[in-house]
């Protein structure tokens, strides 16, 4: 498999700074005028909650990686206050508010199934399993917004190699914690569950072994905040964000393709592969463009989220309209 360096986004595709700044000025000026006209009301205060005390601890000896993009990073505040993590609430701001419930010690990750050396890892051993790298990746949500995030972690392949998959291992399934006390979004509601808990995700073995696929334990040089999927989460940058499962407690090696949470919920909208693909629309909205958080104009969505040079070969000959 040929692994090329990630291609850079051409500067012509980035929204000019003046345009972006003008938008802010416009909104500010317009609202200032209207406010002076009369309406003075108390706003919501911007509470900015980073979760339990452990989050924010510095991570030492983090290497840079050639897989990182040099695009402008989203702020730590954006990354930690605008989250899809339904276990901590369905609104974007809920996970930051409820992060305090998700304590991450003690924590174990059970690795089982078609492996020669099944093992239950303590989270502190996972943190030391392989040298930590900073991977600055684009994240494209299926809801058509995106961010650039400096993850810290190591290739998932490092874990896979340790447990030695058998010849039968064709897929892996990953499972999120199920604990309604620590994950209030999992508590039963009279309206039924938003998703079937626990959240499950899966990858084909070659996707799981791909060097871009990482387990992340931090971001911005610090321990991963709970709302971002602490203590350990998957990051697969060429797939829609929901594939990058959070707060993992189990990794299972399987012969058959595993079930995945959003596919169980709405099979015609969310497939197993869920590769970022501007040509295959979500049944209810277009995937051709996206809004990069912090930018005004929409930008074009790139095939495989701009990681085509590295991953397109994985899907050679596959009809990506059928295997969405």
């Amino acid at each position, binding site marked *: 498999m040929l692994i090329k360096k990630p291609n850079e986004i051409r500067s012509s595709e980035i929204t000019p700074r003046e345009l972006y700044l003008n938008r*802010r000025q416009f*909104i*500010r000026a*317009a*609202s*200032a005028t*209207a*406010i002076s006209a*009369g*309406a*003075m*009301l*108390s*706003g*919501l205060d*911007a509470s900015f909650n980073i979760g339990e005390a452990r989050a924010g601890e510095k991570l030492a000896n983090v290497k840079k990686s050639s897989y990182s993009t040099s695009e402008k990073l*989203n702020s730590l*505040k*954006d990354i930690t*206050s*605008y989250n899809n993590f*339904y276990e901590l609430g*369905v609104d*974007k*701001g809920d996970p930051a508010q409820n992060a305090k419930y998700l304590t991450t010690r003690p924590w174990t990750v059970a690795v089982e199934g078609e492996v020669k050396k099944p093992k239950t890892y303590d989270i502190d051993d996972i943190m030391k399993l392989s040298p930590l790298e900073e991977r600055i990746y684009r994240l494209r949500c299926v*809801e058509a*917004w995106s961010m650039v995030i400096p993850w810290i972690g190591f290739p998932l392949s490092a874990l896979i190699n340790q447990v030695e998959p058998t010849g039968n291992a064709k897929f892996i399934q990953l499972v999120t914690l199920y604990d309604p006390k620590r994950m209030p979004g999992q508590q039963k*509601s009279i*309206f039924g569950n*938003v*998703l079937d808990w626990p959240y499950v995700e899966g990858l084909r073995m070659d996707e799981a072994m791909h060097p871009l696929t990482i387990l992340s334990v931090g971001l911005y040089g610090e321990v991963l905040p709970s709302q971002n999927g602490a203590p350990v989460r998957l990051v697969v940058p060429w797939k829609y964000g929901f594939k990058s499962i959070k707060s993992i407690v189990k990794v299972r090696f399987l012969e058959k393709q595993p079930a995945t949470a959003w596919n169980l*919920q*709405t099979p015609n909208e969310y497939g197993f592969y869920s590769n970022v693909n501007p040509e295959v629309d979500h049944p*209810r*909205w*277009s995937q051709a*463009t996206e*809004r990069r*958080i*912090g930018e*005004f*104009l*929409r930008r074009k969505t790139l095939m495989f989220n701009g990681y085509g040079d590295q991953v397109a070969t994985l899907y050679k000959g596959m009809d990506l309209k059928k295997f969405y």
Partner: protein
Amino acid sequence: MKNFYWIRIAAFGACLIPFGQLLYNAYQGDLGANPIETITRFTGSWSLIILLVTLGVTPLRRLTGWNDLIKLRRMLGLFAFFYVLLHFSTFLVLDHFFDFDRIAKDILKRPYVTVGFTGFVLMIPLAITSTAKMIRRLGKRWQQLHRLVYLVGIAGVIHFYWLVKSDIRRPVQYGAVLAVLLGYRLVKFLLPSGLPRLFNRGTSLKTTAE
């Protein structure tokens, strides 16, 4: 009733509170990581809420016999239109920045946009014909025309229901309120004679319409 003047002023002020809050938060730079999404959702929610309140005026008037309430209806309806206009402008300017090609595609191809846009378009004649002059000019037909608001309400709830990813709780709650408000009218329509007194405490609309 002299006091009603103050009730109208209060209702007018109350309808402006969400708008004021939006402006204040925008001024504070406090619209979250995705301000355009925040504005879209905020204006969309308040459009629906005020529309439902507007649809509640007549049932409440008839159930309580408080006929003055009708004096709030036009104002509430126009405020619902005001928030819908803000919502649509957000879609047009902030979200798509006048990319008419994409906007046209969205309206034609995305059912939730189609139905939302339909609701918006249906509100335009209602807003235009809301003046006293138009009410007089259209006579009986005014009331027939303004029954379109029932379709607007249905379009609004469906629009919301079709756009959520999986948490249907809020659209279902709005839908339940709408079902009660429209159900009231259906029952009243099906029982024209010998109405239970409960349904008809208020006097006929003609004598109270402004």
